[in-house]
């Protein structure tokens, strides 16, 4: 059994003391920062990137993955306890989870979210292990034209499933692609858009953009808003263990959520967000006569979406690991981190760095296990963190982001660039332009250009090569279909309705 051999190799790697420690460190850090209000996983990972500069690639990625699901988990905790979803994928958790907390059942809600996520995480891990190798095989058949079309599909998928205006989101992608053009042309060695600044000939660091826009931009936006009044249910978290009825109600939802999340997570742009929305809708339709109606604290409304978003988060690693194409901004950061560590993301990672590949997968399962242990018994500590006032938090974020950008190249040029992007990030916020697609475009820009130019070179300048090669044509048609479907009036109103709940 290849699968078992591979997993064995993975666990061998992941179970070394060093890697276990980093996975643990990552999940703790992720939970810690995820619980703090106003910081989602993207900002968390961006902020903690300097911590991986000195690590080897495998522990570095293991830690980042830990931060990712830790932050996501922490986000659900805030959603349930203070009705502030730490990130978009726990928005629906807040609907019923917060209601449960108000009725003194915060413990049951947290446990349902935690156990559901753990189950989903286990299934997600097995799915990655099972599907990654065949997908990698397929990826080796890809030529430049196919890669280009696949990236188009990935980028289109990312905007179609994002909230807000479609045209603006596409424009943000193109802007990201253009920012990725500030570099030295790989083929001719021409420095582009560098204004004779030597630092710019290496390109703008993606950490600079991520920290400027996601870290600092968010701080400025938060400070510009009137202080919100938060009600924290600190003392009421008792009776952590769900009752028998809770178990009976929740487990079918967990199964459905896991299945839905695993499928949607693989789709470009899908990932955790879409999975949790879809699961909530499904639960509302499927669950017959819930003991408590939806919107009033139904445990199904917590267990389903939470399992779905965790399953989706796991399986969204598949396109990143096998094709090197990030389906969401967090994966874009992971791709960036791999590049910092000198690993070119793509199908070759599995064969050239098998320890990294399988170790990462095995560590995901271990990380999920750690999260359960960390969160359920220790919930009291995390709750205390919720009460830290923002005036202590944001100077800390500023300091960490500053040190992070400086240590990127030991150069204060990056710090100054970040200051610029902080202002740009705030402008995006004010203008209602979502920054996530920009980051995806920025990461994929250079890869896309290289593949486009190579494909054109091979086809002797014939653009129809993208449509005459069947795989490439299929991918492009899929992208076009996605746009058309979203533009259809009936879907359009549904989509707006779905994202309404978010605001």
């Amino acid at each position, binding site marked *: 059994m290849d699968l078992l051999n591979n997993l064995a190799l993975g666990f061998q790697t992941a179970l070394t003391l060093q890697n276990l420690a980093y996975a643990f460190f990552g999940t703790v850090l992720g939970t810690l920062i995820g619980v703090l209000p106003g910081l989602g996983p993207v900002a968390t990972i961006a902020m903690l990137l300097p911590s991986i500069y000195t690590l080897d690639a495998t522990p570095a990625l293991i830690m980042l993955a830990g931060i990712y699901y830790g932050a996501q988990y922490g986000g659900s905790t805030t959603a349930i306890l203070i009705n502030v979803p730490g990130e978009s994928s726990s928005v629906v958790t807040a609907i019923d989870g917060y209601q449960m907390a108000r009725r003194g059942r915060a413990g049951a809600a947290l446990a349902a979210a935690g156990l559901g996520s753990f189950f989903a995480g286990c299934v997600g891990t097995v799915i990655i292990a099972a599907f990654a190798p065949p997908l990698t095989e397929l990826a080796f058949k890809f030529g430049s034209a196919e890669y280009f079309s696949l990236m188009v599909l990935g980028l289109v998928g990312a905007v179609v499933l994002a909230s807000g205006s479609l045209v603006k989101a596409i424009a943000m992608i193109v802007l990201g692609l253009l920012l990725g053009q500030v570099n030295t042309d790989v083929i001719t060695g021409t420095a582009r858009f560098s204004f004779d600044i030597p630092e710019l000939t290496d390109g703008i660091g993606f950490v600079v953009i991520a920290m400027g826009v996601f870290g600092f931009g968010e701080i*400025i936006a938060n400070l510009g808003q009137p202080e919100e009044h938060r009600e924290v249910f600190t003392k009421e978290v008792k009776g952590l263990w769900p009752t028998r009825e809770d178990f009976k109600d929740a487990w079918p939802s967990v199964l459905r959520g896991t299945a839905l999340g695993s499928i949607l997570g693989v789709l470009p742009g899908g990932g955790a967000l879409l999975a949790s929305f879809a699961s909530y809708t499904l639960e509302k339709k499927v669950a017959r006569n819930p003991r408590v109606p939806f919107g009033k604290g139904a445990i199904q409304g917590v267990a389903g979406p939470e399992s779905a978003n965790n399953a989706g988060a796991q399986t969204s690693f598949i396109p990143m690991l096998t094709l090197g194409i990030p389906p969401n901004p967090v994966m874009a950061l992971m791709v960036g981190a791999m590049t910092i560590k000198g690993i070119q993301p793509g199908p070759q990672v599995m064969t050239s760095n098998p320890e990294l590949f399988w170790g990462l997968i095995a560590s995901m399962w271990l990380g999920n296990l750690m999260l359960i242990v960390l969160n359920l018994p220790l919930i009291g500590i995390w709750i205390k963190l919720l009460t830290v006032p923002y005036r202590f938090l944001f100077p800390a974020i500023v300091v960490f982001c500053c040190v992070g950008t400086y240590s990127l190249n030991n150069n204060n040029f990056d710090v100054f660039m970040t200051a610029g992007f902080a202002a740009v990030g705030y402008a995006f916020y004010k203008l209602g332009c979502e920054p996530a697609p920009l980051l995806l475009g920025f990461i994929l820009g250079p890869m896309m250009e290289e593949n486009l130019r190579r494909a054109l070179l091979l086809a002797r*300048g014939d653009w129809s090569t993208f449509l005459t090669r069947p795989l490439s044509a299929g991918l492009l048609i899929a992208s076009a279909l996605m746009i058309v479907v979203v533009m259809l009036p009936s879907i359009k109103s549904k989509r707006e309705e779905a994202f309404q709940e978010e605001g």
Partner: protein
Amino acid sequence: MKIKSQRDFWSGLMFLVIGAAFAWGSMEYSFGTSARPGPGYFPFGLGILLALLGGLVLFKALTLESEGGDPIGAIAWRPLLIIVLAILVFGLALPRLGLICTLPLTVLLSSLAGREFHWRDVLISSVLLTAGSWALFILGLKLTIPVWPIYFG
């Protein structure tokens, strides 16, 4: 002509200008041919595309009615300027003053951006964050960041 959506108007304009600027800037580089695309090929195409998309957003902002004009709202100048300033000061100070002096300075400056400002809290944050960063970045991660002011080290 009346602007029907403030946010879309300005973002459309932004995309249009940036796209045009990139397209114009890329004319400096060899465009090549489709069979042998040069360094200017991809950015030129993207610049034009962005300008077109910006035009589309702009057009919608001027024709489609939106709720209440979709105003941009008040700009939080104070946090914006202070945070940007704090980052710049950090960048200028770190190579000269080292971590030990720069971090309290950054904490103090950025705290001014908040709604509340208490000397005691700023002091606590400064000490905790400086000590914590030193332990984490210098002791733990062994990053090569200047710690002491150059005049002492």
